[in-house]
């Protein structure tokens, strides 16, 4: 029973992957939800668990797209190595960005991530031979998942690809949940809560923040790689500021301090966005209102709303150790 | 009686700094608040002027309870705090610092200020940041006077200043006192306190533990040792 509690969120994540095909008509759209859920998870690890507000997640997403695109196009690499490479490069770039950005705190840290985001966008734009510049990398193939010449899982049709992405998603979610529940995860919470105190009891804050960055970069890079294969393009827009912003918004409206919340946030953003944009070109305004609402009243985001609803039905959701707003609500 | 504190309790977050302060100031009096570090002297001044809102107790000023009013409203009524570390506007000139605080009907005009603080007149075109520590302190006090306060509160006005400047400022405060101003002085320099004050209060752990007139305090060595020094045998 204890293990069920540990796994409850991973099971929920798996449930989501089973529900999406029932609710969503398009395989691509369902895949997009999971891809951005991964990106939001990476962002949440930094924001909700380490207390770092990064406006540069698009860097790792875009780099992941380019890396997988280049691996598939130029190196004719198979599926898994192409994605693993995206994770590796994503982690390496995150290490670089993190190393510089961490030297500052608060507003200046945020500005540095923003500055790096712009810098990488510019680099991607100018290094046309590598990235295709404005056009991006085109005709990115989508190989089947094969081992020793045997096709394990076909990825040709959108829904086939979805099932592959779903497996990757649940696996990564499980691993991240492990990380977040581990000693490392708890120590990151200490850094989030009170850096000075964490250092005073003996922790190397820089090392801990960098570790969070590296994991975030790997997961976000993976998401970018999956995205490139889904669309067949590694576009410039993936590394553009707008992507960083979108990932951040998904994370915040989902709710920080709980991994599953990021799945909710990404699902909401992608699905509602897709549905509303066909109805109303100014749907982003609605998102703006939601963001304002979350910032002012719904600090726990959509996840908090879900928890409140559960409570109304008599179900008491277990308190998450990473929760930060229960105190504020009691002591306004 | 122009100012009276009645069992005031104040907190910084959960830290219970003032644990029931009761004191009073009569019009035209100079009263000092003495005590060791952390006793609650500065917090008392802050709770009078409204920077820290008292959680319990009353602050009576000219017959009204001002506890809980926003600081700018309390200041507008004539309670003025010159904080520790001065807080002058470094980017403005001396004259600009002063005229910013000016009030039309005020008894204190620029000429009156310059009479008491001739140094400030000499340096009136200098930027605030170019003044020495002592001059900044004079400017801070002068600026407070420009708002025509009824009660002037000075938090450690001579801390860190050279003896000769201290003498100058003490003389200036005497001049201000002579105009009938009510003054509350927080100061750790006993010499300065005993030259200026009519009465002394000693604060310890957020409460008033001693109160006496100047002459009585001058003679009371045991009280000084007990509450301000380290010899607790008294």
């Amino acid at each position, binding site marked *: 029973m204890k293990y069920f509690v540990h796994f409850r969120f991973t099971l929920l994540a798996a449930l989501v992957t089973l529900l999406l095909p029932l609710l969503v008509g398009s395989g691509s759209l369902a895949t997009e939800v999971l891809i951005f859920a991964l990106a939001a998870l990476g962002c949440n690890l930094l924001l909700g668990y380490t207390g770092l507000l990064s406006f540069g997640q698009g860097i790792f997403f875009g780099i992941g797209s380019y890396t997988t695109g280049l691996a598939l196009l130029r190196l004719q690499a198979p599926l898994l190595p192409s994605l693993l490479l995206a994770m590796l490069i994503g982690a390496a770039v995150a290490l670089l960005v993190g190393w510089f950005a961490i030297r500052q705190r608060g507003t200046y840290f945020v500005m540095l991530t923003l500055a790096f985001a712009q810098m990488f966008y510019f680099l991607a734009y100018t290094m046309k031979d590598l990235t295709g510049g404005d056009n991006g990398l085109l005709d990115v193939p989508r190989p089947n998942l094969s081992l020793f010449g045997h096709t394990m899982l076909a990825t040709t049709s959108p829904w086939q690809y979805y099932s592959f992405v779903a497996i990757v998603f649940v696996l990564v979610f499980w691993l991240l949940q492990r990380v977040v529940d581990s000693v490392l995860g*708890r120590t990151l919470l200490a850094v989030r809560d009170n850096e000075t105190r964490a250092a005073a009891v003996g922790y190397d804050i820089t090392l801990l923040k960098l570790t969070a960055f590296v994991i975030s970069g790997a997961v976000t890079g993976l998401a970018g790689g999956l995205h490139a294969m889904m669309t067949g393009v590694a576009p410039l827009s993936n590394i553009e500021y707008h992507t960083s912003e979108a990932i951040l918004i998904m994370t915040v409206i989902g709710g920080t301090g709980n991994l599953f919340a990021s799945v909710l946030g990404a699902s909401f953003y992608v699905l509602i966005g897709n549905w509303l944009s066909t109805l109303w070109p100014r749907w982003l305004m609605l998102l703006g209102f939601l963001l304002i609402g979350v910032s002012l009243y719904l600090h726990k985001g959509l996840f908090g709303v879900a928890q409140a609803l559960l409570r109304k039905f008599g179900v008491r959701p277990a308190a998450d150790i990473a929760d930060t707003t229960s105190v504020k609500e009691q002591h306004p | 009686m122009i100012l009276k504190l009645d069992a005031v309790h104040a907190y910084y977050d959960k830290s219970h700094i003032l644990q029931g302060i009761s004191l009073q100031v009569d019009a035209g009096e100079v009263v000092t608040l003495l005590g060791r570090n*952390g006793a609650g002297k500065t917090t008392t001044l802050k709770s009078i002027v409204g920077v820290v809102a008292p959680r319990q107790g009353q602050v009576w000023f000219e017959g009204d309870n001002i506890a809980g009013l926003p600081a700018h409203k309390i200041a507008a009524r004539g309670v003025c705090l010159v904080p520790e570390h001065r807080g002058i506007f470094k980017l403005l000139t001396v004259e600009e610092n002063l005229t910013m605080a000016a009030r039309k009907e005020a008894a204190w005009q620029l000429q009156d200020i310059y009479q008491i603080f001739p140094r400030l007149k000499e340096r009136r075109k200098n930027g605030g940041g170019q003044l020495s520590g002592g001059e900044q302190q004079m400017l801070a006090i002068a600026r407070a006077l420009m708002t025509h306060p009824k009660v002037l509160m000075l938090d450690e006005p001579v801390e860190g200043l050279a003896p000769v400047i201290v003498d100058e400022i003490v003389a200036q405060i005497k001049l201000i006192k002579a105009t009938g101003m009510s003054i509350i002085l927080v100061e750790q320099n006993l010499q300065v306190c005993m030259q200026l004050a009519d009465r002394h209060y000693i604060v310890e752990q957020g409460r008033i533990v001693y109160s006496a007139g100047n002459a009585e305090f001058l003679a009371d060595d045991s009280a000084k040792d007990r509450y301000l020094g380290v010899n607790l045998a008294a």
Partner: protein
Amino acid sequence: MSKPTPILSARHVSKRYGKFTAVNDISLDILPGTVHSVIGPNGAGKTTLFHTLTGSTAISAGSILVEGEEVAHLPGYKRVRKGLARSFQITSLFPNLSVRENLRLAAQGTRPLQALNPWRRPERLRAACDSAEQLLVRLNLQAVAERLAAELSHGQQRRLEVGMAMAGQPKVIFLDEPTSGMGIDDIGDMKRLIHSLRDTTTVLLIEHNMDIVMDISDQITVMQQGQILAQGKPAEIRSDERVRRAYLGSMITGGKA
């Protein structure tokens, strides 16, 4: 009888902020198993001295020896492993985590590399968990073990603050105004706690509450303007004329008009 070796030694420690010297060539020996208070009038440099010894701020000159080993070049977080721990004057806890978790994290801090493990659950690192349990008893905080640190009363928070410093079983504990903002009852509890620390560790204390200082100190160092004015047992310090003058006189400023 030979002089016992000091557990902590400061040799010619100085700290400068630009042109201003906050701590001026201080040399100090702290004997093991004692409570050593640092007192002094306003601006004496007591907290700055604490900062340089614990590594919260970098030293400008001098050396700091812990059981003979030089630590002055080490950043604060590394000094924890050498046996130094501190509490803060303004309560500094992990507000959104439980009391037990606060203590576990503090206990784990002496083995920070273990804390980088992304797989192992914290409950598996028994040493830190057991330390936390024992501390809860010692601090009399068992009743609130699961409460979030931010929800505790002030007195409980200050005790937890000291507990965080105790958690790593340090050789020397630095307590910065542990009774600040406390009511009478809480002060009594804190006094007993500090007293009990003597058995297992050495305590360096900054306090303004003279009753406590005189009551529990084995040695007192009086600082003034960044230097040591006097040092000795409580009885000696109380009757020291220089100390009296420093506290009551016009040491920095002064004069008559």
